[in-house]
Every structure is written in structure tokens, then in C-alpha cells.
């Protein structure tokens, strides 16, 4: 692993420079230089026709700041469910998830949504861009959610300039006003990556980001992901089936039958 700059998500400062300082929520007791994400004993089951179907069986996982981790496992091993629990989209039945020292599932819905907006960036396999919005607007969406109306309007030109720079950096300077339907798969994923990084999150969760792309385009997108991860010093959790992709991460975590092995 090459030496890289590590960064912390400082709730008092806010995740991104364009965002106002964030009010501490539950008050984390953990030191800022400890692991960014601490997962302990996470369990999750689904009810299927009245029967309990366990998917996560006591998962323990630490993600250090600035670390890139690949999550490998066969289908049905529980990777996606774990990703959703860590991304604060799915509540676990047991266990704790602490992000930067804060117990995420003890937060209110609003506080959790705010944390997700500022501290976590998602990259999905199917891009998940809003079809009615242009590439630039899609990138600006996390900032629109983070800012109030007045604050957004005050910083509008600055934000648009930041989003334009970001898309230009990803080679999409000629695609700013294009809708997702007018973009190729690789371009869409680069827009999705720019959107995930716009609020400067501490943690990026990528769910098979190249699974829907051809090998050349996939490699280019992957290159961008790792480059940004190194440049920004963010923590990356990447779900993949591809051993070669996993090999590019600093650490590999295997899952089997709902457990980290």
C-alpha cells in the first residue's frame, strides 16, 4: 500500500468545504484518529413466508481512515445487505454501526439522512442518475439536499463551478447539459462518481461499479475511483466479484453465509 494522505470526517467542520459547519449530533466518544467505521455484531434477517431468513450473522468489521477495502463473496453471502446497513439505508436487527464515533442507528431519521448526505457517497452498479436532470444537475443534487434554499442560491455560482470542474476532471466537460439517456454507460458512471464525491464524503460505498460496463470502460472508471480515493484520502468499501479489482484494494474482506471470514 502506497503511503497516502488520511483524512477524517469532521462533523464540526462538515464533510465538504462548500457546506456549513455541521452541528454535532449524538456526540461521538471515539477519538477522531480511530477507525472511521466500526461494525460490531451486526445481524439482519428477513421474514419470508413467516420464516426467519438470516442474511447477516454477527458481522464485525473495521474500516480505517483512507483505507480501501474490497468486499468479496458469492451471491447470497450478504454483501449487498451489509452495504445497505453500512450505508444507513437498512436498519440491522442487532449490532452497532459507528461512523466516526457516532452510533448511526441511534440517530433520528433526519440526522441519519444528514449524515448520509455529508459523510457517505454511493456509487451503484446501475448508476442511478435522475433521468430528468442534466449531468451537471445530477452532480449538484447532493449539494442541493445539503443546503437550504437561501444558502444554495447564495452559493449557486460557486457550486456550479465546482460541479463543472469535477465533471471536467472526469472528461465530461462536453456533457454538462446532457441528460443520462444521452450519455454512454461509462459517462453515466463517471457522473455518478462525481455526484458521490461532490459533498466530499469520508466514506465511499461502491456496489459493483463496473458490473454494468465493458472491460475497457470499467477499467477507466475503476482507475478514476482509486485515483480519487487516493487524492482525497477517503475510505472506500468496494463490492466486487472480480478478484483483480479486489486486488487493487489495500485489504480484501470475504463474506460467506452472512459472516466475514
Amino acid at each position, binding site marked *: 500500500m502506497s503511503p497516502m494522505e488520511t483524512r477524517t470526517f469532521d462533523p464540526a467542520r462538515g464533510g465538504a468545504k462548500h457546506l456549513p459547519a455541521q452541528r454535532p449530533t449524538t456526540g461521538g466518544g471515539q477519538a477522531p484518529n480511530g477507525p472511521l467505521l466500526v461494525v460490531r455484531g451486526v445481524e439482519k434477517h428477513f421474514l419470508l413466508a413467516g420464516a426467519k431468513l438470516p442474511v447477516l450473522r454477527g458481522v464485525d468489521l473495521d474500516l480505517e481512515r483512507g483505507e480501501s477495502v474490497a468486499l468479496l463473496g458469492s451471491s447470497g453471502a450478504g454483501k449487498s445487505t451489509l452495504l445497505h446497513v453500512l450505508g444507513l439505508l437498512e436498519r440491522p436487527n442487532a449490532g452497532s454501526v459507528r461512523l466516526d464515533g457516532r452510533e448511526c442507528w441511534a440517530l433520528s*431519521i433526519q440526522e441519519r439522512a444528514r449524515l448520509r448526505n455529508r459523510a457517505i457517497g454511493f456509487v451503484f452498479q446501475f448508476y442511478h442518475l*435522475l433521468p430528468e436532470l442534466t449531468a451537471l444537475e445530477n452532480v449538484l443534487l447532493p449539494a442541493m439536499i445539503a443546503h437550504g434554499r437561501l444558502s444554495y442560491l447564495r452559493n449557486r455560482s460557486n457550486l456550479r463551478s465546482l460541479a463543472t470542474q469535477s465533471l471536467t476532471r472526469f472528461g465530461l466537460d462536453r456533457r454538462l447539459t446532457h441528460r443520462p439517456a444521452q450519455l454512454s454507460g461509462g459517462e453515466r458512471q463517471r457522473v455518478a462518481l462525481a455526484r458521490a464525491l461532490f459533498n466530499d464524503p469520508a466514506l465511499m460505498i461502491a456496489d459493483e461499479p463496473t458490473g454494468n460496463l465493458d472491460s475497457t470502460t470499467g477499467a477507466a472508471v475503476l482507475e478514476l475511483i482509486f485515483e480519487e480515493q487516493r487524492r482525497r484520502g477517503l475510505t472506500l468499501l468496494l463490492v466486487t466479484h472480480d478478484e483483480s479489482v479486489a486486488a487493487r484494494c489495500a485489504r480484501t474482506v470475504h463474506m460467506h453465509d452472512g459472516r466475514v471470514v
Partner: protein
Amino acid sequence: MYRTFLSWRYLRARLTNLIGIVGIAVAVGALIMILSIMTGFLEETKRTVRGNLADLIVSPAQDAQTSAGGPVPRDPRIALEVIRADPRVVAASARLVWYGLLAQGGQRAGTSRDVLTDTEAGRMMGAQLVGVDVLSFERFGYPLLEGVSRLMGWPFRAPLVQDDFDTTDLLLGLDRDPHPKRLGSPVEDPWNPFAPPRTRADIPGPKRASVIVGEQLFSALRMRRGDELELATVVPDPLTGRVSISNRKFVIAGSFRSGENAMDLERIYLERTELADFLGGGLAFSEILVKTQDYDRHGRALQVDLERKLAERGAIWWNGREEDLGAGGQVRTWEDFRRTLLGAIENERVLMAIMLSLILLVAGFTIFAILTMMVAEKRRDIGILAALGAPPGGILATFLLIGLWDALLGASVGALLGVQGALHIDRIEQWLSGVLGVQIFNRDVYFFDRIPAVVEPGPVALIVGGAFAITLCCAAVPAWRAARLDPLVALRYE
């Protein structure tokens, strides 16, 4: 920020939203137009049914006792004095109302004996005899001027004075042109209606008082101006306490047309002094007609004040209880007389408004359907928004705002169309009638020859507010469902 931005973008992106907006616009526009037209009808009808009816009508209970203990005076002088003393009163005149009989054929009513013994009494017709004051003392104050005018052949018209018959509804009936399909015959001079017709000038015999007959009665009995008409009536005999029948011959001075069937078919006008004489002189008046400066402004207050003043002066009956004064029993407004008809039109207006509000409800349901479809269609977007950090409240607000835009655009356009449509309803009706080849508004049926429409800001604001409320309520359900959507289910939705 994203709520406004996304809601507006979603609104523009889906043409189906236009259906909802058009629905609200049509509902709001139609409601405003119909209500304005109904209000116009109400106002026009008020004007029409009122005719020249006086603002206030004082009807003393003449058989009752006054506060002083004596009977209510049979003479109108005290009451007229009290009424005219009020600065809000412009004019007041006494009127005597009684009932009489006349035989079919019109020229000869039965004699007392005939009325009581006629086995074919069904041939007799009832008539309402109304005695009004036309000439006043002031008129007699210009005999020289009138004489000179007549000599020179100039038209002479004495100035209108307080107790002139301007307060009665006869003048309007005389001014109105006869119905083209009836055989009405207007009086020679509406300002001196009881003057004997010129055709009677050469006829020898006793001078007879004149009567003016309702146009329908005039036509039905094939009367002619200058004919004699014998009327019979029943009067109480103050000496014996029994009723007796009195009959007298009158000269027909002409006909009047009030426009009301009942009045034109039954009413006969004559001078109040003549009618009082016909009745034996025991009764001089039944009611006093009062005309005010500004009825809408102080009609009701004047009603209460006059009843109090008249009671205190002993001109009307009073039970002596302070709390019963001004209750409106013996001093009534013209609206009290036409309460049933006006109430019916008002009821119709309210019912129409309620029924038409259903259109607004239908438009609201359209918004509900469109937004429900949109929420189903945008499930993935909702999941993405949640993943990007939008709280459920923000997602709810986003979809609620779409409803708000629908309401804002629909209600604004609808209000504009409704108000403009109401203001130009006549031109629209004429154009539509021309296009369809059907007469939509039959002007022969009504007293007015245009579709009346009165746009009032209050109801317009109420309709627009109602449209907002209904639309937002209908948008709230799908918006709430969107907010409750599990983001993961939404994200997996492909």
C-alpha cells in the same frame, strides 16, 4: 432547495400534469362563471321582483291597542308625520288595500242581491282593490301655472313631492309598455292616471271615479278604456256590527302592466279617497309606503327606528314591552315581502355552488391519480434521493409541491378565465348560439335582455382557496406514500 427544483422539473417533464392543471382551471373557471351569473340573476331578479315596491312598508295592526291604551288610528296623518320627520326618508304615502268582486263580462258586477243569491257565483271574479294617493297638496299649489300651461297647450307636470305616488308600484306599471299579445290600453297621462278618459267627456250622467285595471284582467274581460265597471265589495257596518255589500260604478281609465301574473290578473287601482268612500269611510289606509335615501346602507336600521318611533307616538300597536320594539312586525322591508322568492334564488345559488364544487373534487381526484402514477413511476428516483440524504419529509414536500404547482397554475388560469368569461358572457353566448345554431339564452323568458353576471372578489377568493385546499389534500396522500417508501425497495425497482 431540491424540493422546489425537482418538483418543478417533474411537473414540466410529464405532460399528464397538464391534464390536472387544465382540470383545475376548468373547475375554477366554471365555478366562478356560474356563481357570477347566479349572483347576477339574483341581483337582476331582486331589481325586477322589487319593481317600484317601496323600501319599507308600515302596516299597523289597526284593531289593536296602542301603548297609550287607545285604538291604532285609522288615519295615516300621525304615522306619516313621524315617518317624514326622519332625514333618511325621501317619500312616504298611505295606501288602502281591500277586496272586491266583479262579474265576468266586466261591465256590470252583480248587485248586492245578485251576489248573495246568484247560483252561478262561480262567474264572479275577485279583485284586489288598491287605493293610492296620486295628487298631493303641492299639486294643488300650481293651479295658475297648470291652467296657463293647458291654455297654451304646453305639457304640465307638477314637481314630485313626498307623498306623491312615486312610492307605489303603480307608476312603474303605467310606464311599462303593454304586452304585444294582450289588449292592454295605457292611461292617457301616467302622472295623472285617474283623470277621466277623453272619450267620457261627452257622455252625460253622474261623474264617476276612475279605476286602472291590471292588463291581464283588462284583456280577459275584453275591457275598453272609458267603459264603466261595476264593483261590489263587502264592508263592515259600524252600527250593526254586521257586514253589508256595497257596489259602485267606476270608469276604466286604462290598464297597467306590472309583469307579475297575480298582480296583472287581480289588481285594480283607484284613488285612496275614492276607495275609502266606497268602503263607507271607516277605513282610510292599510299601510304606508316609505322610500329611503339609501336602502342598502340604512334600510334595516331605519326599520327598527321607525317601529320604535311609531310605537312611542301611538301610531302602531305596541304591547308595552321594551324588548319587543323594533322586532319588525309592523314595519317591514321590501325584502321581507319577497323573502320566499329571493330565498329560493339564493338557495338555488348555494345549491349550484355545492353541486359545482364536485367538479373541483373531480379535478382534485385527477391530481391524486396523476401523482399516484408519478410516485409509482419515480420509485427509483425516490430511492436515489433517500440514498443521497433526502429525509422522508423532503420527499413528501417534493411531491406535495407538484400538487401546489398544479393548484397555483390551474387556479390562476381558471380564475382569469372565469372572471373574463363572466364579464364577457353575453358575447360568448352570442358566439356559441351562432356556432351551434341554438338560442342558448332565451331573452323572452326573463325581464332582462342580457345574461347578468356580477363578479364578487369574496367568492372568487373562496373558490381559488378551495381549489388549493382540495388539490393539496389530494396530493398529500401520494406524497405521503412516496415519503414512506422503503429506499431499498425503490432502488431495487428496475
